C-alpha cells in the first residue's frame, strides 16, 4: 500500500470555514456583548519600560512577575525532582517500612487540597521551619553584592520567607506526582531485565543503577515533562500567600488600572512562553536520550 499525499478535501475546507466563523462570532460577541473598553496600547509598558536614569530597558511589573514565576518554577521543579526520585526509590524498596514511608507521603500530599497545603506551609510550618526574622536580618547585613545575588537567584529579603515556603510547598506537592512517575517508570521495565541482572550477580542497587533506571528514564521523561508544565501553571496558586509571581502582579495591576482582560490575556501568553518552552526542552531531551541509548 502506498501512502497518499495529504490533500485539502471538501471536509477540511468545511471544518476550516466553521472554525473561522466561530472565531469571528466570538470576536464580535466579545466586542459588542461585553461592556468593556479595550486599551491594548497600555500593556507593553508594563512588560518593559525605559528607565530614564540609566537610559536602558528594564523589566516592569508583568516581566518582574514573569521572572519570579520562572525562579519559582525552576527551584520547585529541581526540588520536586529530588524529592520525587528519592521517594520513588523508597516506593520500590524491598523494605516494607521504606515502602510505607513513600506511600504515606504520596497519599497524604496527593489527597490534600493544594490551596490548603499552601496556607498551612505559609502560616504554620513556615513560622517554625524558617526562622524568618533571623534569616532575613542575616541577609540584610550582607554586602550589596551578596544581596543582589540572592535577589537575582531567589527573592529580595522581604519576600524570602514567602518565597521559600512557596518553593517548598510546590516541590512537596509536585514531588508526590513525580514519585509515582518514577515508580511506574521503573516498574514498567520487563521482569526479565531484573532476572537477567540477578543472574549476572548484580546487587539490587547495581541492577537499579545500570539496568533499570537507564531504561526507565526514557519512559519517565514524557510524563515528567507534563508534570513540570503542571508545576509552572500550579505556581499561580501561591499568589494567595502574596508571592509576587506573574498572577499576583497581574492582579495587582488590574486593581490599579482595571485593564482586566488585556492583563489576563497577556499573562496567559507569558505562561504559554514558559510552558511551551518547557515542552520543547523535553522533546529535545527525549530525542537526545534515545540517540544516546541507541
Amino acid at each position, binding site marked *: 500500500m502506498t501512502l497518499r499525499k495529504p490533500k485539502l478535501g471538501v471536509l477540511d475546507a468545511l471544518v476550516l470555514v466553521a472554525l473561522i466563523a466561530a472565531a469571528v462570532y466570538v470576536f464580535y460577541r466579545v466586542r459588542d456583548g461585553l461592556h468593556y*473598553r479595550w486599551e491594548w496600547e497600555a500593556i507593553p509598558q508594563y512588560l518593559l519600560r525605559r528607565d530614564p536614569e540609566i537610559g536602558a530597558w528594564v523589566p516592569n511589573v508583568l516581566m518582574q512577575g514573569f521572572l519570579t514565576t520562572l525562579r519559582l518554577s525552576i527551584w520547585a521543579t529541581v526540588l520536586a525532582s529530588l524529592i520525587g526520585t528519592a521517594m520513588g526509590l523508597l516506593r520500590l524498596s524491598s523494605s516494607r517500612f521504606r515502602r510505607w514511608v513513600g506511600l504515606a507521603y504520596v497519599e497524604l500530599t496527593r489527597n490534600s487540597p493544594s490551596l490548603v497545603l499552601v496556607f498551612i506551609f505559609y502560616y504554620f510550618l513556615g513560622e517554625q521551619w524558617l526562622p524568618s526574622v533571623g534569616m532575613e536580618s542575616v541577609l540584610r547585613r550582607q554586602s550589596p553584592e551578596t544581596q543582589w545575588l540572592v535577589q537575582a537567584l531567589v527573592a529580595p529579603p522581604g519576600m524570602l520567607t514567602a518565597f521559600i515556603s512557596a518553593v517548598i510547598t510546590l516541590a512537596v506537592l509536585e514531588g508526590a506526582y513525580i514519585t509515582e512517575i518514577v515508580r511506574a517508570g521503573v516498574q514498567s521495565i520487563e521482569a526479565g531485565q531484573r532476572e537477567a541482572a540477578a543472574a549476572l550477580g548484580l546487587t539490587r542497587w547495581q541492577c537499579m543503577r545500570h539496568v533499570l533506571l537507564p531504561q526507565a528514564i526514557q519512559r519517565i521523561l514524557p510524563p515528567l515533562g507534563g508534570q513540570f508544565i503542571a508545576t509552572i501553571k500550579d505556581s499561580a496558586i501561591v499568589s494567595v500567600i502574596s508571592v509576587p509571581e506573574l498572577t499576583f502582579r497581574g492582579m495587582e495591576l488590574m486593581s490599579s488600572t482595571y*485593564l482586566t482582560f488585556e492583563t489576563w490575556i497577556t499573562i496567559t501568553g507569558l505562561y504559554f512562553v514558559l510552558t511551551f518552552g518547557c515542552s520543547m526542552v523535553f522533546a529535545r531531551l527525549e530525542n537526545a536520550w534515545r540517540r544516546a541509548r541507541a
Partner: protein
Amino acid sequence: MIRRFAGTALAVMAWIMSISAVASGGELQQKLTEESTVEQVIKRGVLRVGMSTFVPWAMTDKSGNLIGFEIDVASRLAQDMGVKVEFVPTKWAGIIPALLTGKFDVIIGGMGITPQRNLKVNFSIPYDYSGVAIVAHRQLAAGFSRLEDFNRPEVIVTARLGSTSAAAVNKLLPNAQKRFFDDESQVVQELLNGKVHALLAGTPLPTYQALKYPDTLFLPVKGAVTKEPIGFVVRKGDFDTLNFFDSWIRVVEAEGWLAERKAYWFETQNWESLLK
C-alpha cells in the same frame, strides 16, 4: 519519705520562683520595650508595611513603583523614624493573618476600624475617614434611587471579600443576593458585564467608575452610605508601637500634611497620567 521530700522540693521551687519574679519586674519592662515592633524596626532599619492595591490609596504606576495616599503616609512615617520603607503587597483576605504571623510590622492599607477586627488586632487613632458608596448598572437597576431599592431578594450586589464594603452590604442590604470577589477589578468587571445590579466599594471608586463608563453605570445614591474611621493596624499587646503611631498621626495631622496629601489623591486627578 519520698512524698515528703517531693513536697519540700516543691515549696523550695515556689520560693525561688517568687523571688525571681520580684527581681524580674524591671527586666520584664525592659524586655517588653526591646521586643516592641518600633524597636525591632529601628534595629532592622526597615519598616515593613502590609498593604493591598486600591485606587487611589495604593497602586502600581507605569514604572512599577507604588504610589497613592497610603504610600505617601507610610513613606513619611518611615522617613520620620529614620528607616527605609518596604511595602509587602498582600491579598486583602489574608492581610490580618499575615500581620499576626509577623510577615510585616504594620498594616497601612485603608483598613476601617471595626469592633470585630479590634478584637483580633490593635488600631491606631484614625488618620483618615472613608466611606462606602454604591454604583449601579444603568439598565438592570433602572429607576433605583434609594438604598432600599437594592434591598430585595431579586437584586444582586457585589463587593470585595472581607472588606468593610462587604460588611456594609451584609448590614444595609440583608435581603439582596451577595457575590463577593477577591479583587476590586473583578468586582467592577462583574458590574460592567451586567451580572450584578450594583457594587459597593470605598469612596472614591464608585464615583470614578461612574465617570469612566457613563453609558453603563450611574450613581443611584449620591455620596457615601456609611462613614468609617481608618487606622494603622498592629499586633495586640504592643503599646509602645501603638503610642508611637498615635503620636505620629497627631503630629502630621496638626501640621496639615495629612489633609494636604488627602486633597491631592482624592480631590484632584493629577496623578491619573502616572498610571497608564
